[in-house]
């Protein structure tokens, strides 16, 4: 379930923590395993991570469901994580999300039919200063407007 390569990467993280605290590496481990499993996790992969780190499955599940960067459903090549927490909401995130959904013809948690883009609503990404904002894969885009969103999204290939 976890490839040798992934195990190597996880081991590198485990090594950063005190002995017997390998479960501290759970976030990285989930990320690594997610990356090699079609960018998503399921009960089996989560259990595999838990077993590898010698922690209860439910404890890994807690982490995997708490953070928004773990995907439990099929996602597109680009995952737009749109913040809808308080600062972004006050700055109009809800309307922008509606616009984005219309534009792509998908609802939150769905993937465009070409498999390119999926949208998720997420909690504060710590970039309130640039609210409203979203994250596409590893990059942040701030001070969003309808125009800006159109341009960014049109450039995704």
């Amino acid at each position, binding site marked *: 379930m976890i490839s040798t390569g992934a195990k190597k990467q996880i081991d590198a993280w485990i090594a950063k923590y005190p002995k017997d605290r390998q479960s501290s590496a759970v976030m990285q481990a989930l990320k690594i395993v997610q990356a090699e499993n079609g960018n998503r996790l399921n*009960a089996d992969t989560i259990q595999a991570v838990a077993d590898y780190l010698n922690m*209860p499955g*439910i*404890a890994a*599940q*807690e982490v995997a469901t*708490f953070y928004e960067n773990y995907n439990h459903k099929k996602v597109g090549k680009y995952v737009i994580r749109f913040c809808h927490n308080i600062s972004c909401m006050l700055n109009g995130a809800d309307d922008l999300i509606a616009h984005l959904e219309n534009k792509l013809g998908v609802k939150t948690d769905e993937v465009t039919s070409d498999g390119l883009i999926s949208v998720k609503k997420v*909690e504060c990404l710590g970039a309130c200063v640039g609210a409203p904002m979203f994250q596409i894969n590893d990059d942040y885009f701030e001070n969003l407007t309808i125009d800006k969103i159109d341009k960014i999204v049109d450039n995704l290939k």
Partner: protein
Amino acid sequence: MADIEMEIDGKVVSAKVGEMLIKVTDREGVSVPRFCYHKKLSVAASCRMCLVDVEGAPKPQPACSTPVAQGMKVHTQNDKAKASQKAVMEFLLINHPLDCPICDQGGECELQDVAVEYGSDVSHFSEGKRIVSDSDIGALIQTDMTRCIHCTRCVRFGLEIAGMMEMGGTGRGEHLKIEPFLREGIQSELSGNMIDVCPVGALTSKPFRYELRSWQMNSIPSIARHDLVGSNLFVQTYKGKVKRIASADNDWINETWISDRDRFSYEGLTHKNRLLKPQIKVQGQWKQVSWKVALDYAVKGLNSHVLKHKKANQLGGLVSSTATMEELYLLKKILTEVGCDNIDHRLNIKNLDNIITLDSNIKLDALEKIDYALIVGANIRLEQPMINHRLRKATKKGADIDVLNVMEFDFNYPLNAENITAPNKIASTLAGVLKSIMTNNVQELPNYLATIEVDEVANNIAVKLLNSSSSVIILGEHIINNEDASAIANLATIIAQSTNSKTLNLSITANTIAANLVGFVPQNSGMDVNTMLASEMRGFILLDIYPQHDFHHLETVVKAFTPDDTFVISLNSFKDDIITGYSDVILPIASVYETSGTQFNVNNDMQSYTAAVKAPDEVKPAWKILKVMADLLELPGFHYADSTQVLAEISHQPHTKHTHDGHINFTNKHNGIGVIWQNSPYSIDAVLRHSSTLQKTKIGQMNSACMNQASAEILGLSNNDKYLGVPVVITDTVADDCVFINTNHAINIQEQA
């Protein structure tokens, strides 16, 4: 910790530095509302219900996580405290469905109680409430997760007490949900305690669902009867029926927990297999008759088959391990009075010249303070869950635990070394331990150790025992039929003596200790059970015995009981075809919670209980039946008005104390495959076997003959075969030359039902 003085609501109280405020208020009887705090769990301080006003602190403080200090002044009732409590209450109720009228927790709900006290009539919240979907988490616990207030008591219970984190909080914010992983369901042998710790109606008893309101029931304190602990509990009854079991506090025995076995076994009481009326066999035909006719028939039968011929030496009395002390005593007294010395309770021991005599000299609460334990021959977690829990606590404080077993079992704590060895090597390993210890102590070695080799396993155990300041050696059930049983027990005693260790004998169960105390073993030159079964007997009185579960050699037993001129009086609480086959009279007896009696636990704590409910239909408590039988036999000295008078008489008797012969005799030459055969944890007695919900759990379903590949080849078996009627499971977790059988005949009972 030094004592300090502080003030609570104007009253000066003393406390210990660093103690949490809520402990002080609880001790002083000041009520502070709480949800996440539980006295036996870690402090989460997440619900904020316990906010109180501490002078000098700008904001209200949570009592459960505020350490007290000298001179602290606390107000639990002033405006500031009340306002905070009220606000928190309102928040907690935002998403709560307020469905008390259809909630099983109604009437015994902490949320309900606190809401009555601190809640307002109207909420500011008028938006939609969230709904949480439920999944089936197993046969024992019903969930209604929309009611959950996320106190995480159940999560912490799993992590801290059960030793397996089963519940967790998934999702976040509004999507936070308490649930187990993978829908595998809850599997812990202590899981039912989550029902008790859940302050709301999110986790309730599944078998009890929609049955009754808590205020409709009587709660009668009683004692659990299925293990060596005698957990304290409440039997909750309604109109003469046991409806539910809840745990009772007793820090010396079960703290505040009970095992699932003790919590859910009551269901067996109402199984349709209960025997409800006395019956007699006349010319091969069974007839239901009145008590008078049945008892007359029984006494007449005894007279004509046995007593008239002065053949009391061909009469035998056998009892099950669940009999109460009073029952044991009365049956023994009757038999002694008629001149019969053939009594025994050790039904499942193959060789009664080779038995375990081992003291239990460590208190249950002291178990959690040990620094080293050696467990020999026990699946302790499932066989004695509450004792295992104490050991788990010890490991959390750093104790090391070594195991010497024939198979790997699931432990809920890390082991220092799990040594898996064939049954016929256990004695020599222990001898190795002793040799190593004696060599270390520069003691002269006795002859029997001369040729013993000290291997690494033995040496490691010896070093541990020598270096530990409070250790215990525990012997479990798997040893009882070991060919070296008595040697193993004696070795354990000597090892313990030479290392200042304690010993704990878990090789027996239920009320066997009481049976030993009243001396329900062959008297004078009386026959033991195996001799009785091999002799021509004219009569038996059998107390709650079910041969296909209680003996290892069913055929011999049936053969001994069946002959026409053997008159068999069976006192039982459940129907059983085999019993009907050989008995002449069947007398229906009260089962657990239906009779008063006395139980002894492994610490020799004597615990008496009253009957919580009347036995159903015409069923009577066995002690009464025995008393009347004695009267009909015109025996003197049976004038008891109730069972406490029996108990009073017992306490004036000298107790039988077993003695160690200290004799060690083992040959270390046994060959062949050792079979360890035992009832699985939820089928050790008749009530349990009829508890339908327990039987649905994973533990209840245990029914396997485990062996490794090599043993399977020797026996010519493969995975789909049966061995002694039990499905074969080939696994490399079993030692060489060993078959470990955990069988559950109850599966058959369920199938028939």
